[in-house]
Each structure stands twice: as C-alpha cells, then as structure tokens.
C-alpha cells in the first residue's frame, strides 16, 4: 500500500511499448502500415493530376497529400488497429489486461499507441515533404490542419475498436474492414474529388466519416473559402458526431474476450 501507484500515462506507455515490439515483429502489418499508403499515393498521382484541373479543385499536389493522409488514417490507424485489437482479444490478452490496473480506455489507447505514432510520423513526413519538395505554400490555418488530423486519428481508432464487434478473427478483418475502407477511399475525396461526382452523390459523401477530416486538412492548408466558418463548423460537427457514435458503439458492444 505504501508503494507508489502507477499512473495512467505510465500504464499506457508500458502497453504501447509491448505493442510496438509486436508491430515490428509482424511483417505483414508493418508492410501495410509503412508501404501501402505511400505506394497508393505514388501510383495514383497521375490520375489525381487529371482530377486536379477543375475550377473547384485543390490542385494535384494537395490532393495527393490530403489523400495520403486519408489513406494513412484508413490503413495505418483503422485497418491495423482492427487486426491488433482482434488479435489481442482472441489471444485473451485483453481479458488478462482487464484483471490488472489499466482501465478499459487505457488498454485500448495503449494498444493503439504505436499505430498512432507511426501514422503521425508518416503524416508529418508527408506534410513536410509536400511543403518542401512540391513547393506548396505553408498551411494557412495550421490549427485546422492539426485539429483535423487529431480528430481523424481518434475517430478511426474508435471506428477500429467498434469494427472488432463484428470481426470474429484476424483473417476476417480483411472482409469486415472492407466497407469502411472502400466507402472512405471512394467517397471521401481522397482518390476521387467530390466535385467530379453527380451533385446528389457528392452531397451524401460529405457526411461520410473521412470526408470532414480531409476537408479540415485541406481547409487548414489552403484557408480562404474552404475555411469559411460555416464549412469548418459543419466538418467539425460531422467528424465529432462520427467519433461520438464510434465511442458509444465501443462502450456498448465492445467484446473483451472471444465468443465461446
């Protein structure tokens, strides 16, 4: 009783460190986390350049960078974490951790820590490279860019935890993550600009989870009409609503041990 109590930060760090070791030892997960987003952006850049010519377009370079960030959120944070949470659940690691001092949110946060760190590092690299190599202006409203990125990370980590509810094992994760991955990739303006879609489809797509995150990042970079208060509020509200929904779903339905 006299011994010093552990702190939340200390516990999350201990869990994150173990999870980082596991990520480094899992070649498949590592390859997806490190190569897939960058590879996709590089492969699709020529196509993006064509889309980037319209009047409302944000330009091919920013399209690539914000698209890259979107893909990082989808693959490094979302897909990677669905498999990590499911793997730990099926190994009974989550259940075992719950017998100890870490709280439920700490267990989820600790498991997410390395993926979030890798995602952040990639985003920073992309933003720095974008500013330096592609000769883009510096972000006009950095607070919107940072806020959008932070919200995106929390949202997709929470969506990952929520997706484990209907993912019975690691193999099935490839299937169960497909809806979020496909809909986000196609409908959130990271590969295909919403402006190039029929009006109604574009309107619907603005309410998808990844769309407001991408919009905030672009608004933060370019400023101007994209960063109009009403637009920013709408994007923030949409992203927050999705985050709350995902957190609620996790709170309500998350399974800490395998079905038997």
């Amino acid at each position, binding site marked *: 009783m006299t011994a010093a109590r552990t702190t939340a930060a200390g516990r999350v760090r201990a869990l994150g460190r*173990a999870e980082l070791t596991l990520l480094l030892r*899992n070649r498949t997960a590592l390859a997806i986390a490190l190569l897939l987003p960058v590879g996709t952006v590089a492969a699709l850049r020529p196509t993006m350049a064509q889309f980037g010519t319209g009047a409302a377009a944000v330009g091919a370079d920013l399209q690539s960078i914000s698209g890259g960030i979107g893909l990082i959120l989808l693959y490094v944070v979302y897909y990677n974490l669905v498999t990590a949470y499911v793997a730990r659940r099926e*190994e009974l690691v989550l259940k075992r951790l719950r*017998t100890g001092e870490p709280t439920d949110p700490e267990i989820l946060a600790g498991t997410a820590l390395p993926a979030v760190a890798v995602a952040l590092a990639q985003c920073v690299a992309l933003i720095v490279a974008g500013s330096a190599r592609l000769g883009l202006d510096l972000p006009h409203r950095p607070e919107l860019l940072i806020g959008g990125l932070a919200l995106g990370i929390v949202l997709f980590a929470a969506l990952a935890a929520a997706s484990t509810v209907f993912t019975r094992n690691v193999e099935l994760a490839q299937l169960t993550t497909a809806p979020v991955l496909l809909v986000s990739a196609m409908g959130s303006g990271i590969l295909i600009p919403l402006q190039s879609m029929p009006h109604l489809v574009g309107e619907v797509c603005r309410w998808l989870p990844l769309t407001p995150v991408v919009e905030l990042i672009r608004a933060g970079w370019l400023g101007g009409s994209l960063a109009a208060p009403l637009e920013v509020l709408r994007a923030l509200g949409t992203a927050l609503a999705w985050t709350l929904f995902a957190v609620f779903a996790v709170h309500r339905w998350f399974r800490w041990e395998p079905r038997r």
Partner: protein
Amino acid sequence: MDNAENVIEAAGVRRRYRGGFEAVRGVSFEVARGELFALLGTNGAGKTSTVELLEGLAWPSDGTVRVLGCDPFTERSRVRPRIGVMLQEGGFPADLTVAETARMWAGCVSGARPERESLGLAGLADRSGVRVKQLSGGERRRLDLALALLGRPEVLFLDEPTTGQDAEGRRDTWELVRELRGEGTTVLLTTHYLQEAEELADRLAILHEGRIVASGTPSEVTGARPARITFGLPEGWHPGDLPPLPQLGVLGYEVHDRRVVLHTDRLQHSLTALLRWAEERSVPLDRLDARTASLEEAFLAIAGDAGRAGFDTGTAFGTGTAFDAGTAFDAATTDGVAR
C-alpha cells in the same frame, strides 16, 4: 475466525449469461484474511464464472460480492492494486518474450517487484528470452503465476493454477502457494484436482451446477461422508452371518463378488465389532481394508447426488441433512439398507 476480517465475501451471487444460461445460482461464502479457500468442482460447475465476478471482470446478475471491502467491479481502481489474478487461460501475446511480457505487466503494477524476482519465484528465470508461443502449457501457467505475483498482492486469485503442469511443476506451484499463504496472502483457488484442494486449502466449497453443495475444512467435508470397511468372507460364510448391522454401527452394505463393503459413520466402533466377531469365530477376513472417506469419494458422491436430488438453492452440506446414507448409496447398494 469470527473476529477475522473477511477479505472476500460473496452473498447470494447469481450470474446469468446473455442467452439465459445461469452458471452461478445463489453462491455465498467468505474468505478471511490469510486464509486459503478452494472452490472445487467439475468442469462447468461454475467455478470460473464465480471467480470472474470476484475479479471484477463482470458483475453479478443478483447478490453482492466484496473484495477488501470494495465492489470489485465498480471500485476497480481501488481493488486492483491490491490483488493478483491468474486466469484459467492466461492471455499473453504469442510474439513477446517472457521478459518483455513481464516488463509490460510490471509497467501496469503498483509497487512491482523486480521482474526477474517474480520470474524466479515461478521458476522461469532461465526462460526469459523465450517467446511465449514457444513455451509449454505448464510454462505458460508459470508465467501467468509470475505476473500475478508481480505486485506482491494481498489477495491472490488462482483459477486452476496447475492445469497442464507436470507432477514436478504442480509440486513447485503448491510449494510457492504455501509460502505465500505463510506470508499472509489470502488465496482463492479453483481446481478440479481434489488432491490440490486437500493439500492446500484451509477451507473449501464444492460447487455443482452453480451451487455450493458442500463446504468446510477438508476434514469436515470428508468427515461427513461415511467411512468404508471392505473385506472378503471365506467359503461357507455369508453376509447374513455377520452380527446385526445396527450392532456394528453400519449404515448399509454392498456385496460385490463375495467382497463385502460396509459403510459406517463410526469407523473405529464398527471395525472393533467386526474384528471381535471374526476373532470369536476364527473367520479370516480376506484383504481387509478400512478407510475414512477421501475428498475424492466425497466429491464424486456429492456431485452425483446433487445432480439426482435436484438441490434447492444453498443447501448446506455441513448440516448433514441432505446426505444420510439413504441418498448416498441408493445407486450402488445391491441389498437392503439397514438403519
């Protein structure tokens, strides 16, 4: 014990799973500080379902549980730093080494002892560089035990700690558990090894189909069972030649292939009377065997009976009412029961 502080209390605890199955059906018991209490039962008796409630992994659908005076589920942050838990199946990432697993766990434990010390206690010091997936089943149990001990817990929950261990590993674990108990650790142990409960427990409860069907010290639980005297009668002698059974103090008897089994609550009295009779008539009793009931016999008889008799909630075995000779032997008795 009346004055001792109860470290673990369960009162009228029920646990119903989604889907309606009720695994725990009104279980009550207390464990005093420094006591080693064993929950004994067959697979599916409700041991783990009960212990998980005490560990704070779930909450009871009815009744109350207290650990160290707190609700282990809602007051998790107050209870957890003071308890150590070993689950029935330890969950550790397969790709971490033993040392990495211990380091992760130590980062989540208040006042953790050095990891090496804990691994050493569990006999895993020389396996620290090995990945968890390469450990044997017994070694995994040792790792789980090492982690449960990291925080020098006041209360230790051990859910089938020696399952999958070889005889030597089991002995080591028993030795360690005895040492911890000697240092004042309160231990709640579940097991389906009767010998384990007999060796370690101060008190025990037998769970069957979600209910406690017997409880007390090991000798109380076995003492409430009749003892047995077994012998063979020579050619020409029949069980009917024995003295009247009430005179022998015998509750009932069975005959299998000329071997007679007497059941008695007063072993010494019955045995003396039997030997005197044999001496007077010069009857050699072939392979004479007299023994008090072992926990195993008690357990099997109780588990079997409870299933047949369809006990009501919380029937206390200690009173002996439900377990007179009549219900205990009806399936096995070939002849009449003398009372």
